[in-house]
């Protein structure tokens, strides 16, 4: 589904991603962990098409296509979804109007007619229930005045509305209380199908109790320095990152 090959990227001339390779197959869940500032969000931004990150080397192939040549909206319509670490507040733009436009753009891309107003509202209701989001939130402006946790739930709600093939969730679990965490995880599990995939960026092993990853990667200083099964998350929880940093330094010295 997604093949990243030796990806290097800079922000304002500073090297942030220093050669990342990663393969995600349909139906897989990959977790990416790693210390603050290691480049996790930057990787997500490159995949979603953020312009201020400049790709200097490497390729990204998504469903056989060159992802890097596509605009952010094309990527979205081809099934990529980014759950933002810091969702943006957009005063004056209602959630309803936002989602209606987005859903209909997706439908147009698939050659489908726009949803009627009543069908759309039905879809909204269904998905709201599915991710247990407060009904009132959907009547407000996009993320405006939402609490940290509400914003994160809203990302999952949007994901449920758009049914992506590859969802990249950037710390969607941060700032959630225990119940919200369970809801978010359930949301992911309900959407999960054999043909769609997830990249879950997180700092906490507890999310991975609910969303069980097939693979766990550790990103450190712009590189994936360790890849293993879900037990790696437990090990990190216990021991922190120091031992990995040491391993990396030793391998450079060696």
């Amino acid at each position, binding site marked *: 589904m997604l093949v990243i090959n030796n990806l290097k990227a800079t922000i304002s001339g500073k090297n942030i991603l220093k050669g990342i390779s990663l393969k995600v197959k349909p139906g897989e869940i990959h977790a990416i962990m790693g210390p603050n500032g290691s480049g996790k969000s930057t990787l997500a931004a490159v995949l*979603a*098409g*953020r*312009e201020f990150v400049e790709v200097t080397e490497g390729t990204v192939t998504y469903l056989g296509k060159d992802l890097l040549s596509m*605009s*952010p*909206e094309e*990527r*979205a*319509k081809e099934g990529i*979804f*980014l759950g*933002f670490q810091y*969702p*943006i*507040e*957009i*005063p*004056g*733009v209602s959630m309803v*109007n*936002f989602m209606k*436009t*987005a859903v209909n*753009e*997706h439908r147009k*891309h698939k050659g489908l007619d726009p949803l009627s107003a009543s069908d759309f509202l039905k879809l909204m209701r269904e998905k709201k229930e599915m991710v247990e989001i407060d009904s009132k939130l959907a009547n407000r*402006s*996009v993320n405006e005045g939402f609490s940290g946790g509400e914003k994160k739930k809203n990302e999952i709600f*949007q994901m449920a509305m*758009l049914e992506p093939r590859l969802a990249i969730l950037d710390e969607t679990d941060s700032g959630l209380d225990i119940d919200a965490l369970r809801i978010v995880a359930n949301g992911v599990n309900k959407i999960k199908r054999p043909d769609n995939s997830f990249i879950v960026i997180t700092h906490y092993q507890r999310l991975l109790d609910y969303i069980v990853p097939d693979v766990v990667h550790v990103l450190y200083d712009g590189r994936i320095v360790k890849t293993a099964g879900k037990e790696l998350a437990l090990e990190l929880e216990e021991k922190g990152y120091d031992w990995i940093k040491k391993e990396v330094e030793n391998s450079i010295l060696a």
Partner: protein
Amino acid sequence: MNGKSETTEKYLKLYHDNIDKISDNSAPYLNSFREEAFGRFSELGIPTKKDEAYKYTNLSLFFDHDYASYFIPDAADFEKAEEFRCDISDMDTHGIVLLNGFYPTINEKLRQLPSGVWIGSLNAAAKKFPEIIEKHYGKYAHTDTDGLVHLNTAMASDGIFVYVPEGVILSKPVQVVNLVQAEVDSFSQHRNLIIVEKRAEFSIIICDHTLSPKKFLTNAVTEIFVGEDAHFDIIRVQNEHNAACKITHTFIHQERNSVASSNNMTLHGGLIRNSTYHYLGGEGAESHSFGLFLADKWQHVDNFVNVDHAFPHCTSNQLFKGVLDDMSTGTFNGRIYVRPDAQGTLAYQKNNNILLTDDAKMDTKPQLEIYADDVKCSHGATVGQLDGDALFYLQSRGINKREARLMLMFGFAHEVIQNIKIEPLRDRMDNLVMQRLRGELSRCASCMVKCG
């Protein structure tokens, strides 16, 4: 007359040549103000960029021009206006049409609505209700600096009159459709007076339109009295063509515990200047001043707001926004004046602008003059581009860049529109603004009025 600009001289002459004719048709009380106002005008003259309050607005383009008509009323003009017919369409309002500053009906110049509300021609009202007029006319339009207000007092002979008696709640708004239509370049001045007595509730919508493609200049003054515990809203929808210049001066006088709002929605127009004066003249009064403009090409939109906190425990709030495309320009000048006695004042001001091109330009200036100690005041102004993070957020959900930009601009504008309390008007404004942003709107006359 010493050292007057040529332009000012022209208007002095206009007054001298026509004052007899103007006075003949007008109620005596309106006439009693003319000479003094003319004196003040001849001192102050037509504002130039040297006047602080007009620093970024060049009026000379319109005031230097020689108009073929100055709408000095003649009996024949009233008859001509009488031939004009206009229905205000689908909004549920009490409608009034003002044509080139006149009330275009001879037979029914004043109409009584249920519960004793009167709407109609100011000139007719000044003859019929001298005691009401004498209490309010000329009492609120105070300015030491703006000669145009005095020019209006000296020469205007008609306009809209509304009287809402004590305790009356008019659930339907009054909608004034202010039309300019002439076959020659024209200058018109009209004068409105709105009286909302104690505990009354009333809202008025004023729609400005130009119907023929000539050069037009309008200089209008509106005086509004909002009595104790009364509620009042005025919403202006300005949609004129690029060769039209509209200057409005709105003076809102508020008594104790009254709540009033003004909302200037400028969709289109060549040069627009709206001066809004809020006088908080009694404890516990609350005023809101809103404005939104969308400008492109060479358009220029200037909003000037003066909030005068004259009594304790009043609240004022200003929210003005502008979207500027092409090489359009805009100005916001918001003054908050808190007098020494006005303790417990709350005063807020916000002015946000989006420049869509490098050539568009916005000047924004808060002016705070606070002479009381116990005052909470905040103000903020921004001039910038569309928020790149928000744009990306929308795009990342599959919305193309053009549409995402439109949504952001619309959202930006909607923050002002959402303050309109009349729901059908709010929805209509949303639509008109969306059309305007899409570049589909040349004028909204066709959807507001049906003329024939």
